[in-house]
């Protein structure tokens, strides 16, 4: 080994250690930023190390790629609004996976025949995971952006078709493993994997996106780890595995928060099921006008806001903070209750509220806040539906039975901000809306909240 190779390996080791420290910093908001600086330093070291330690001949390609990538990346970092965070994250899963897949193809074009069987196996995984994550993430991003309809796309025999696609991919993998010179098989595998990614994500509804996002995150990481096996590069294995496991842990948490299994999310096609097993809900939904709602809030002593995806679509995060501050000035205790799957990706609501300058000390997790609802005067539900559906707790026949919920129905009164009388994404009827303690305030969440704040001021 030459000196420059030693230098390169040293930067890789440093980068690996710094990445772990960075993720350790993520355990608290106060240490998280410092951690990310370490990771940035590690990344920079690894890039410099690679350029020094590798005999580079084609600098043009490298400089062009780094420059174009930096411009697009910086543009995204500065201009993407917080409400578009799920789409951006899905896109970046696609980019990461595409890079892994392309490196795999490149390795194949050069080293296909002189590769040991084990490396070829890793290459196969890299290609499959990379390709299916690329198209899967693009579909997910399209759904989140609204380019593709958010409703699940389903057809008869879908699971059978998916199984055939999967088996074709698996057969290609085995043939490629045993016949390294079969380029046609290799490229078929690549193509089928692209197709499989599409098939995997189209039947999934928008409400299940937190799980899908986490799974795609995991796949993208594992694709990078497989690249590490192909190239015999430890820092790639470590960083890819950390990413893969992070995504895996998040998917498990998200599934738990919906009381569903990963298989059910992927192949169940929830949301397309017509709800015929809702409990018989009697009574009428009681509407409330702005003045009465403002009165209730102004004279309450404890108020809890429960945001859902509706908050994001209405971009109402600033409006809710203004209302909350107005109430706090009157001596009302205000808290926010965040369900783990509220929104379209893990932690979505926290980021939106943080953007609106809501201090994170007033954001509460489900387990912390649920015991407090009985002593709460008003719970304000903003564009959330299934996560506050008491049927999940009370009706064992409900489609979402067993899903842990925010128990807003135990509050003394509930105000639900909703666009119209329709059902939520799952198509389930929500008995909460018919309870005597509940009143409905229809309209766009942002304007409702702004008007509420004005009305509170005049109380």
């Amino acid at each position, binding site marked *: 080994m030459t000196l420059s190779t030693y230098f390169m390996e040293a930067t890789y080791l440093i*980068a690996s250690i710094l990445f*772990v420290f*960075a*993720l*350790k910093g993520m*355990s*608290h908001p106060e240490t998280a930023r410092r951690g*990310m600086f370490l*990771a*940035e330093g590690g990344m920079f070291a690894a*890039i410099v190390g*690679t350029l020094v330690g*590798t*005999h*580079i001949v084609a600098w043009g390609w490298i400089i062009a*790629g780094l420059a174009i*990538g930096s411009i697009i*990346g910086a543009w*995204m*970092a*500065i201009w993407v609004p*917080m409400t578009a*965070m799920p789409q*951006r994250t899905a896109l*970046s899963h696609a*980019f*990461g996976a*595409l*890079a892994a897949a*392309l*490196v795999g193809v*490149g390795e194949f074009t*050069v080293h296909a025949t002189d590769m040991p069987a*084990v490396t070829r196996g890793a290459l196969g995984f890299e290609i499959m995971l990379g390709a299916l994550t690329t198209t899967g993430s693009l579909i997910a991003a399209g759904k989140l952006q609204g380019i593709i309809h958010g409703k699940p796309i389903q057809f008869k025999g879908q699971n059978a078709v998916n199984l055939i696609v999967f088996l074709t991919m698996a057969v290609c993998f085995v043939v490629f493993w045993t016949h390294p010179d079969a380029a046609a098989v290799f490229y078929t595998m690549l193509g089928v994997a692209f197709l499989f990614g599409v098939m995997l994500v189209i039947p999934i509804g928008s409400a299940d996106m937190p799980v899908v*996002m*986490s799974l795609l*995150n995991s796949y*993208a*990481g594992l694709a990078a*780890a497989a690249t590490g096996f192909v*190239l*015999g590069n*430890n820092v790639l*294995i470590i960083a890819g*595995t*950390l990413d*893969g*496991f*992070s*995504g895996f*842990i998040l998917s498990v948490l998200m599934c738990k928060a919906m009381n569903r299994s990963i298989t059910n999310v992927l192949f169940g096609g929830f949301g397309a099921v017509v709800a015929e097993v809702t409990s018989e809900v009697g009574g009428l939904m009681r509407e409330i006008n702005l003045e009465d709602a403002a009165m209730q809030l102004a004279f309450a002593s404890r108020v809890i806001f429960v945001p859902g995806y509706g908050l994001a679509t209405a971009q109402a995060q600033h409006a809710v903070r203004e209302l909350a501050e107005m109430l706090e000035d009157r001596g009302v205790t205000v808290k926010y209750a965040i369900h783990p799957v509220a929104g379209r990706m*893990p932690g979505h609501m*926290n980021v939106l509220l*943080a953007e609106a300058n809501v201090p*994170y*000390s*007033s954001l509460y*997790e489900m387990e*912390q806040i649920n015991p*407090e609802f009985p002593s709460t005067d008003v719970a304000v539900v903003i564009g959330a539906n299934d996560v506050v559906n008491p049927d999940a707790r009370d009706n064992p026949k409900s489609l979402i039975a067993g899903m842990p919920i925010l128990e807003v129905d135990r509050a003394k009164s509930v105000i639900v901000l909703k666009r119209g009388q329709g059902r939520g994404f799952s198509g389930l009827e929500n008995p909460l809306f018919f309870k005597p303690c509940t009143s409905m305030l229809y309209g766009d969440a942002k304007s409702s909240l702004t008007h509420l704040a004005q009305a509170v001021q005049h109380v």
Partner: protein
Amino acid sequence: MNPAVLIASIYVFALAAFLGYQVISRVPPLLHTPLMSATNAISGISLIGSLVLAGAAHYTPLAHALGFIAVTTATINVVGGFGITDRMLKMFNKRKPEAKQEVGK
């Protein structure tokens, strides 16, 4: 890849998986979105594989071209991912500590 290297790689993989589980299960739900974009930026380390493909001596022009695209997309992830993670983390403020009095009840 000879068997000894493969076994060492599997050790690295297994230990990284264990470490990842330990470290990441302690990240609070509050920071799950920044966590996802941070791990994404970190796995942009596949950039170093792309750099080799795009420029190293023993690769073909076709490989260089593929490497160029890979360098571009990986750089988008690294720059964009770290940038946006930092932008998010800057927004998390503790402010108004008196709002926390109710905790522990």
